[in-house]
């Protein structure tokens, strides 16, 4: 089937629609191709698209410290969080003590993006270890800033580059970031001031969280069947027969994305749809 757009463009445009004017959006700088595409590039492109359309006063906090960078000045992706090319990227402010304790007031960041190797149906995320903590089968990169993302940011988009059974599991090996243990009430009792996870974007579908804080499938991407989603998820998703298809981007949105947001195809890659 011939497609007008890539998977990355589909996710970017859907994300952009969920941002509001005046919000502050945070994205870290991930390394490694799949992680970088999902945690850094798609969010950056989506925020810039929103700024060019319905949210001109949205603030982009790149890597937590680079405020409203001129993304069109990028000739290549920044390769290190404090690399010299990022320090020289035109922007409005650099928060020099990032990620120290006083770089942002709690409540200032409206939304952010994170990822991990495992997610459970309550939206808890693991990025610390596979296996037991005492003797891990695989030690990962450490909690990083994930606990903050899930605890104090307004809402969190979980960006999962791989939709596989081992990534979406009933029980995760380490709760590094807290979703809704014991539902929204359970989360509230912990005193966490952020609203926790709001959506999960994967190559197959978009998940959201219901009033109880339980994950459900909000939409399934064009060309993906409900059975594909079920087969690649390690816990029960219920009946998916009435789940709608993820809305495709319009020609105008694609033109803006390719012409203005990412003219050099730095963020979303050069692959043809």
């Amino acid at each position, binding site marked *: 089937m011939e497609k007008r757009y890539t998977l990355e463009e589909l996710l970017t445009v859907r994300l952009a629609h969920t941002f509001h004017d005046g919000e502050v959006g945070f994205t870290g700088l991930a390394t490694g191709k799949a992680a970088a595409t999902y945690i850094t590039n798609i969010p950056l492109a989506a925020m810039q698209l929103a700024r060019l359309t319905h949210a001109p006063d949205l603030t982009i906090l790149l890597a937590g410290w680079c405020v409203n960078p001129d993304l069109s000045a990028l000739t290549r992706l920044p390769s290190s969080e*404090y*690399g010299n090319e990022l320090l020289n990227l035109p922007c409005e402010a650099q928060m020099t003590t990032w990620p*120290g304790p006083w770089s942002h007031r709690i409540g200032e960041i409206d939304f952010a993006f994170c990822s991990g190797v495992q997610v459970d149906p309550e939206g808890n995320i693991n990025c610390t270890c596979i296996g037991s*903590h005492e003797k891990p089968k695989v030690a990962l990169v450490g909690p990083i800033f*994930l606990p903050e993302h899930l605890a104090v940011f307004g809402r969190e988009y979980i960006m999962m580059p791989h939709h596989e059974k081992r990534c979406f599991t009933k029980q995760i090996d380490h709760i590094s970031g807290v979703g809704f243990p014991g539902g929204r009430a359970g989360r509230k009792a*912990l005193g966490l001031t952020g609203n926790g996870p709001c959506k999960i974007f994967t190559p197959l579908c978009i998940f959201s969280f219901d009033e109880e804080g339980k994950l459900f499938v909000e939409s399934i991407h064009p060309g993906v069947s409900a059975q594909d989603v079920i087969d690649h998820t390690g816990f029960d998703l219920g009946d998916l027969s009435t789940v709608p298809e993820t809305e495709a981007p319009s020609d105008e949105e694609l033109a803006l994305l390719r012409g203005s947001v990412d003219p050099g195809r730095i963020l979303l890659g050069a692959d043809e749809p």
Partner: protein
Amino acid sequence: MTTANKKLISLREAAALVPDGANMSFSGFAETNNPLSFVREMIRTGKTHLEISGMGDAQSVELLCGAGAVDLVRVSNYMAKNGRCPNFCRCAQQGTIRTEDYSHFGITNRFFAAAMGIPFMPVKVMIGSDLCEIQNFDKDRKVMEFDDPFSGERCGIVPRLAPDFAVIHVARADAEGNCQLYGITSSIEIIARAAKHVIVTAEEIVDTEEIRRTNQFTILPSFFVDYVVHCPFGAYPGGVFTYYDYDLEHLDLITRSGKSPDTMEAYFDEWVYGTKDEAAFFDKVGIRRLMDLRADPYSGVSLRNRRQFL
């Protein structure tokens, strides 16, 4: 505090100040501002049983873990350019190091309490997660759930953490210990205030007159600093803003070598044990490589290193 005229010492003297088993914190985040000359000297002189309290000082900790110098690591984020840090992860998986996990704000608030001289700090992170549930060598001294006595609001508290030594790489320092750095400083100010002893390694040693003339770049006044060491290219193979880029090839060499203890040992034999000091190390790196890494004053990056200009 040490008096000014004794502060400027050699790298060997500075490394000798650190006893085995010391609790260390290093400057640097990602590939920038890591005091790697100091770290190599620690490895050459065979430090062991170290305790690390870090936020993102991955490059330093990765080398020290590879050299078997570390017992305990408080970790928030150890990420190499290509993902995981192989030496750190191997040691954690084999149980030769014990780890205690913190979030960025979790560990920096422990430093912050020490920096302020107060016993603990309230936090809004880690509670409800396994960072709170799993307490290893910091058991009962890590994070505790707590109700704010004023409002009743649920939060967590973390106790102060004062490392024995903070080792910090900066751009310029004078002999009295006034330190300058341009751009991002990350955890430098906080670990310098939290630590019991502060050792600074500097790209350049300048006159105090020069510091006075450009005082807006001074991030640490001298009274926070105990010792100063002149270490040009002291963050190599990492980088320093406006000085030089990180060396991707050498960082990759470390990551590749870290895949097994044998290849890592071979790396150390060739590059660290095989060079008697940092001068010999940089002779081996070669003047051509170092010159190619120098930052272009206008773009801030090395155009040669990035193959944008030959």
